[in-house]
């Protein structure tokens, strides 16, 4: 067996490499991004690094056909992270290989020449184990960044990007981009908060803990109190912190699917019958407007 790891401008692929190693070596990383990134990707577990180039004024997505052409020459399972450009490059590979796609794997292994994936279905409401005879495209959370230290040399491949797309401008995010996925402490806020003006109460707790601030989907998408990259859920950020403090979040399936990996869950909610209560390690039933400031005070 062999496997491909597709890298799209971001070294956060530790989990992708781990899964690729389980599928079976040799592992070939296909990299779109800077030369430095290609060097970083040459990490333990990676046997070969193929660098397709620096996209310059092209979006990384413009390399999807090049990735497809590369993998179709020697078909094998292809893995990538879940970020937008990673998914597009993986899609290019899946299309070229006519390969099925599987997401949210809990476990991956090679068995008798088959790739066997244990994965969530329908947004993670149930588990399924599926065996694939031929190549398969696997999309998963990338995990922490890798930084070289492996033995593979970087080979540059002659690849060209689709010429029909050009990045004409990028206004960098002024706010620091949320990095909930790798945060070890997260405070999440839900619709139990009565008004956007009350956000500082929860922000103060996050600051006192040194935690990232996350939220439920309605807070980001309906109310737009926080940016969309801060909502935790099956369709949003998947987090696995050491502690997740849920403030005014009832704990719908969609949300809990995004924080299943948390080591400890603390819930602060007025409703002692909310679904989150049975899925918490510490339950504080009461008014968040008195409890949250009290916890903030207790921390300092």
């Amino acid at each position, binding site marked *: 067996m062999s496997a491909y790891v597709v890298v799209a401008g971001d070294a956060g692929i530790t989990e992708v490499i781990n899964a690729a190693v389980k599928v079976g070596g040799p592992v070939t990383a296909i990299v779109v991004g800077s030369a430095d990134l290609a060097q970083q990707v040459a990490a333990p577990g990676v046997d070969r690094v193929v660098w397709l180039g620096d996209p310059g004024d092209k979006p990384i*997505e413009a390399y999807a056909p090049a990735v497809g052409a590369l993998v179709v020459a020697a078909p094998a399972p292809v893995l990538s992270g879940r970020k937008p450009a990673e998914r597009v490059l993986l899609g290019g590979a*899946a299309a070229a290989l006519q390969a*099925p796609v599987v997401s949210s794997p809990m476990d991956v292994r090679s068995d008798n020449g088959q790739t066997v994936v244990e994965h969530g279905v329908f*947004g993670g409401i149930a588990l399924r184990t599926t065996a694939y005879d031929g190549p398969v495209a696997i999309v998963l959370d990338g995990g922490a960044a890798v930084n070289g230290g492996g033995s593979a040399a970087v080979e540059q491949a002659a690849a060209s990007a689709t010429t029909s797309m050009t990045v004409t401008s990028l206004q960098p995010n002024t706010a620091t981009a949320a990095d909930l996925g790798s945060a070890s402490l997260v405070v999440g806020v839900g619709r139990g908060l009565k008004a956007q003006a009350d956000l500082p109460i929860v922000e103060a707790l996050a600051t006192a803990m040194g935690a990232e601030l996350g939220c439920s989907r309605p807070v980001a998408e309906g109310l737009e109190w926080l940016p969309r990259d801060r909502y935790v859920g099956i369709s949003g950020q998947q987090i696995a912190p050491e502690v997740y403090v849920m403030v005014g979040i009832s704990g719908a399936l969609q949300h809990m699917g995004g924080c299943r990996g948390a080591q*400890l869950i603390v819930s602060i909610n007025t409703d002692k019958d909310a679904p989150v209560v049975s899925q918490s*390690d*510490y339950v504080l*039933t009461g008014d968040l407007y008195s409890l949250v400031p009290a916890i903030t005070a207790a921390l300092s």
Partner: protein
Amino acid sequence: MKIVVAYAWAPDPQEASVGADGQVDFSRAKPVVSEYDAVAIEVGRQLATATSSALVGISVGGPATGTPVATKAALSRGLDEVMVASDAALADAGTTRTAQGLAAMVQRLGDVSVVLTGDSSVDSGSRMMPPVLAGLLGWPVLSDVQKVSVTADGVTVERLLREGVQQVSVTGPVVLALASDATQPKAPGMKDVLAAGKKPVTKLEVADLGPAVAEGTVVSTAKLTGPARKGIVINTADPAAAAAELVGALRAAGVIGSTGGQA
């Protein structure tokens, strides 16, 4: 010129129930045009009106996808016509098989400038369908699209990414996956409901979609169980005491530092 919207007629998994053996029962969950796809249709409507293009919905799915109530529901959201392939053989089609069917439809329609999709499908959520569809068509694809405007030879797209707001100009046909908040979809009006039944519906057979791609073999299913939680209830009669108890417990567990902040 045609603008195409790929949509799914699917139930929301949140309304499904999962048996002890991990079998998912959708019998009590009603299929709908998901809110993500409704965003794509709404943006498509605006683009089609601005460019005097026809707005065509395409969908691949199980038998329910082709029922009159399903096609009318999609049409009532502002599509001019729909093309559907619905068959029991497509009910559990994976991303690649679905994308293959959609690609066959786009090629059959011809003269398509843009294919729009929702942010993700409610029933799988992997957000892989647009990239695979584009790969099969040999078209470029961009996700997380906030705004689209049509130019002389293509489109200009604004995307909200982690890195910031990115503008991309695209020449020629393209697949665009819209961000879930690209627009606020409106509920169909009463006139839209009545007009839906008068719009054209084209039905394709499974054979029209090309040979099926290999799918994996399901080895087993299971109910998803989260890690066991402790369920310790902290008395909140006195908020300060409750806070002290919680912070003490978290410090004892070594997950936060002794003076606040991260351990």
